[in-house]
């Protein structure tokens, strides 16, 4: 994809909001495996899904996903 790795704070945000992967998946309309692969950096979500996630946690999308400095 590129030389910079994409990191995310999904797990931290989930813990803050006391949500399981399954509950988060239900909230944004995807499977639990999709949340799991995003969290582990296996799958990079589309802008649409990233925005949906940021909406659920009420944080800017940059707070959820960051590129290596």
């Amino acid at each position, binding site marked *: 994809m590129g030389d910079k790795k994409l990191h995310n704070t999904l797990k931290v945000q989930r813990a803050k909001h006391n949500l399981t992967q*399954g*509950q988060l*998946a*239900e909230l944004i*309309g*995807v*499977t*639990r*495996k*999709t949340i799991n*692969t995003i969290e582990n950096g296996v*799958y990079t*979500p*589309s802008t*649409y*899904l990233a925005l949906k996630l940021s909406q659920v946690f009420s944080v800017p999308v940059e707070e959820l996903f960051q590129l290596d400095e």
Partner: protein
Amino acid sequence: MTTKIERVDQQRGKNRQGFLVWSTIFFISWFIRSGLKIAEVENDTVFTVLLVVLIISLVLQVVYMFKDHRLDVEMKQDPRLKEAMNDERIQLNELRAWKVGFFALIGFIIFAAIVSLLIEINDMMLVYLTALLIGFGARNTAVYLLDR
């Protein structure tokens, strides 16, 4: 607590696994049978056993397809569930799986072309059907492995 999405996803995974196991058995029997036919081996007992295995595995594949169809009906009744079960990662995996299937099919056709230079293949329909089975089987295997 298991959500409805999780339950259906797990069930779909089990159905795919069952289908894959029986389609692999079907394919192996098919491949052996085709090989024996091309090599013009005549052994009624072996052909009968292979035919029985082919029929049993085909019936069980249909059973798993029917189970999968029941899940499809359940998904159609719940648009949110249907959307979740076809999310963007799953759609991407489907595309990747078709790509794998296509290359497997091409690979087998090249293999068959090379083999046909060494031995004469009279039954080309058998080769076409085997190529289709390999392509479809590779696609199903890829869907299962990518979605694990």
